[in-house]
């Protein structure tokens, strides 16, 4: 019995990884197409990113810079997969516990640290600059994000993502957090934080291909770069899912039954797609910030917006 349960869990884990990468790569391809249309270009086909990954994984030489460099990939991919397991997807959550809303934040930091290791091992100065910038970016967008998270936690009186999702799905769309005025502004702050998490413009400071030659990824080539692209695809899904879980009820519109699970899945897919398109459109229309501008943006304006919503929620709860 235990063995079967284990096997099922492993199968689900693999399914998660495959769904995550496929959805992520598809989104990235569509994102490139959208940016191309904004530039008045034709753009690559929507399946371009699958081809790119296949090509990278079939490269004949793959230069490594020592075992720490290899570990970086392990860190980033395993970290992001673990995050995905803790996130409710269409209401279905594989692992859960009290306080997993905090845990997810920590787990999301693992890949960045893995990057830092790998970039350090490669010894390229550009990579070092990129990692510094990535860590500063993390420091800046996490402040408004955590404040909005705390507001949600106070309102729903829980630290578990599953409960937050459940409370929001009681009444369908009407009970989504984003329908309440204090959380509307919180959602704005969180969406800007999401833009930084996804490293899209104006916050693509850590990679900045024209400034520091794609930052931490400078020395990654061949299969290493291919795996990084896979990581990026899963990360895209995980980060947008986090937002959907916090503000859009995790995409849960129906309860109980197989049909409901399927519909919830597709609603979730549609919601993260909308979020992604939003962030792509922002990316296509803004140039890159400098690092101190981004820092100022998050800590001055975003943090204040998030704090207002926090106070508002607090007053609501006390009443």
């Amino acid at each position: 019995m235990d063995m079967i349960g284990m096997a099922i869990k492993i199968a689900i884990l693999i399914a998660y990884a495959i769904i995550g990468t496929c959805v992520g790569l598809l989104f990235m391809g569509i994102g490139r197409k959208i940016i191309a249309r904004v530039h008045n270009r034709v753009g690559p086909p929507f399946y371009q990113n699958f081809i790119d990954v296949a090509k990278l994984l079939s490269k004949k030489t793959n230069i490594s810079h020592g075992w720490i460099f290899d570990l970086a990939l392990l860190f980033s991919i395993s970290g992001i997969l673990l995050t995905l397991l803790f996130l409710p997807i269409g209401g279905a959550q594989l692992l859960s516990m009290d306080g997993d809303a905090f845990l997810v934040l920590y787990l999301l930091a693992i890949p960045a640290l893995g990057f830092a290791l790998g970039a350090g091992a490669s010894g390229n100065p550009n990579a070092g600059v990129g990692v510094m910038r990535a860590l500063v970016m993390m420091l800046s967008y996490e402040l408004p994000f955590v404040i909005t998270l705390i507001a949600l936690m106070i309102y729903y009186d829980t630290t578990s993502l599953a409960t937050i999702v459940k409370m929001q799905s009681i009444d369908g769309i009407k009970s989504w957090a984003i329908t309440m005025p204090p959380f509307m502004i919180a959602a704005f702050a969180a969406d800007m934080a999401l833009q930084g998490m996804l490293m899209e413009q104006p916050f693509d400071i850590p990679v900045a291909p024209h400034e520091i030659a794609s930052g931490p990824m400078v020395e990654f080539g061949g299969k290493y770069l291919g795996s990084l692209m896979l990581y990026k695809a899963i990360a895209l899904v995980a980060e947008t899912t986090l937002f959907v879980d916090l503000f859009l009820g995790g995409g849960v519109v129906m309860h109980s039954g197989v049909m409901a699970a399927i519909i919830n899945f597709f609603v979730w897919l549609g919601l993260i797609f909308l979020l992604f398109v939003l962030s792509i459109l922002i990316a296509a229309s803004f140039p890159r910030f400098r690092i101190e501008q981004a820092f100022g943006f998050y800590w001055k304006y975003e943090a204040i917006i998030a704090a207002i919503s926090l106070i508002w929620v607090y007053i609501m709860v006390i009443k």
Partner: protein
Amino acid sequence: MGLHNGDKMMRYEEWSKLARKASKKSLWMVHFCTGCGAVEMPPVMTSRYDAERFGITSMATPRQADVLLITGYLTVKTLRRVIQVYEQMQSPKYVIAFGSCTINGGMYWDSYNTIKHLEKYIPVDLYIAGCMPRPEGIINAFIKLMKLIDEGKARGWEKYQKYYDRYKENQRRVFNFEIKEEQKEEKNEEH
């Protein structure tokens, strides 16, 4: 005992065919803008000619790139850097030489410090003639390169591995010449 040798070869052939199909549709280039040709790259990449619809994008570093695009003449000093860049790339890798300067020296045919035939120093898969070639020419060259890759004919990187000693020999010859010239100049200054 596993597969027979013949089967293995067949498998390998099929895999490499698939790999070639993928790599032809996603050519990432690093353009080494040396000569005048660099001005032709922005229109190729941006809205007017939009190379991205063929899966061609420019990459920031040689480690990530598949195609090395050399736009124009190379002085001996730049050649050294080009070779460094080429050797940092991960195979399979391809070289497109751009403009008549790389073919036979072009209008620098009698210059003392440019190299005349790029092919002597690194394996070139494809030349684009013209001084300078227009964006249509560049895209045409890329499509030709895709065809070559598909047929398995773009094997410059294998050639470089196989005849490494000869390429190095040629490279050393020009570099030594450069070093000698520098020493001569230093001596002249001293006197």
